């Protein structure tokens, strides 16, 4: 069953690439619009040899790492504080809603004024996009921990901070993990969108730059790298998730 899924999935990608190559070679659609897989592979090979590929991946990953890392720290702290103290939740609620629904990219001219036309602006947008789901999910997770668990811990003499560290936080792992999952996607989106506007040397900037020169092959090559990075991030998180949550035995609470 599992093997069949993998086979069919691989087949699906193979068919897409083959049709793409064929359509482009036969001239049904001009390679100017869609390039073709072999040309993209050649461009990637060249970029890998010249070091350009490693450089733009490094720039984007660094921005992503700093933005998402800061969002994890701030989001967890805010989320735990707001989940534990209702008054904190009430105070930050309006701001979270604003950051959640505002088109944050629209602030990029302001960030350029404050942080300069470079990685700082990209990191700020990536951070703001990813911090809200992490904070909101942590808050919801802590708030919804079963009262029975809390009372049981209290009855056995646990102090409030024991309840937080040993009961509330472990019990919220699935919610927090879901928040991190949303956050990773949004942090990556933030980096790519911001790089479309801010020339930082990363993958999004490379797409925008080559797009401006109508170099379809190079544009699609950078896009492929972004797709691979996105899939890898998601897979890595699933692995971490099952590791951290491995103490849970039953089918959930």
């Amino acid at each position: 069953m599992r093997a069949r899924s993998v086979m069919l999935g691989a087949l699906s990608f193979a068919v897409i690439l083959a049709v793409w190559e064929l359509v482009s070679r036969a001239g049904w659609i001009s390679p100017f619009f869609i390039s073709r897989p072999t040309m993209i592979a050649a461009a990637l090979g060249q970029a890998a040899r010249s070091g350009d590929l490693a450089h733009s991946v490094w720039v984007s990953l660094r921005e992503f790492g700093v933005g998402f890392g800061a969002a994890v720290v701030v989001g967890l702290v805010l989320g735990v504080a707001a989940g534990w103290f209702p008054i904190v939740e009430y105070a930050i609620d309006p701001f979270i809603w604003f950051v959640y629904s505002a088109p944050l990219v629209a602030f990029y001219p302001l960030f350029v004024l404050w942080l300069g036309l470079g990685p700082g602006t990209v990191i700020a947008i990536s951070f703001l996009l990813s911090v809200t789901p992490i904070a909101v999910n942590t808050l919801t997770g802590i708030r919804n921990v079963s009262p029975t668990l809390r009372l049981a811990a209290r009855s056995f003499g646990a102090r409030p901070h024991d309840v937080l560290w040993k009961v509330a936080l472990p019990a919220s792992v699935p919610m927090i993990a879901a928040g991190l999952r949303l956050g990773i996607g949004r942090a990556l989106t933030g980096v790519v969108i911001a790089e479309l506007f801010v020339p930082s040397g990363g993958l999004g900037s490379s797409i925008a730059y080559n797009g401006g020169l109508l170099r379809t092959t190079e544009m699609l090559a950078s896009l492929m790298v972004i797709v691979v990075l996105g899939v890898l991030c998601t897979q890595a998180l699933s692995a971490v998730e099952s590791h951290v949550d491995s103490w849970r035995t039953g089918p959930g609470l």
Partner: protein
Amino acid sequence: MAQGFSPAYEVLPGRATVGVAAVALFLAVWELAPRLGIVDPFFTSLPSRVLLAGVEVASAGTLAHDAAVSLTEFVTGFALALAVAVPLGLLLGAFPILRDLIDPPVMALYATPQLALLPIFVLWLGIGMGSKIAVVFLGAAIPIVVNTMAGVRQVDRALVLAARSFCATRRDVFVRVILPASLPAVMIGIRLGVSRAILGVVVAEMYVSQDGIGNQIMRLGSAFRVDRLLVYVLLVSAFGLAMTTLVRKMEERVA
């Protein structure tokens, strides 16, 4: 809910009071800091100036045109996404072979920031409405497909078997059991899709366009008119909040 470990819970002021107070404090600091010379108002503007700019924007008359352009892009792209993504998600959920074939590319797109495709869409469809509609379509369609598919797969098998035992045809099972049971998941996809679609319109118009809200935001940003820029940002946020609230209300209806 939280009694027993938070003794002060009962005497705390309510949600609305604290929220209003926090926002008022934020506005006061934002208004006073530039006035006292702590920060340069060129970088931050002031709430009072944003309010004035709001009146100016409302009376200038270009807002209606830009809003109409952006709304048309949003509605067209979203309607196309609904028309394609819901049936596709239902099909993928119902037929495992189709799912094995189409799920990997869809998942790859799901894990990718779809807005990275924006420059390609501009190359294919030009700088007009077409490229924006394509971005909205893709941004909304992917989460709807993924959630619809998951919704169909999570339908309780006992329900399906029960319906079959009472002589329901396959079509009856699909229309009367699987569709209603997966509707909540479809709505979650729609809610995620709405916020991605709104971001898509704004970003696509900021990237390259001749009119629309995103175009105005870009112009004002380049001219560093922070006060008017914030008016447009607040308008889009209010629209996003209204749409999300609307979808949440619909979710409560179907859940």
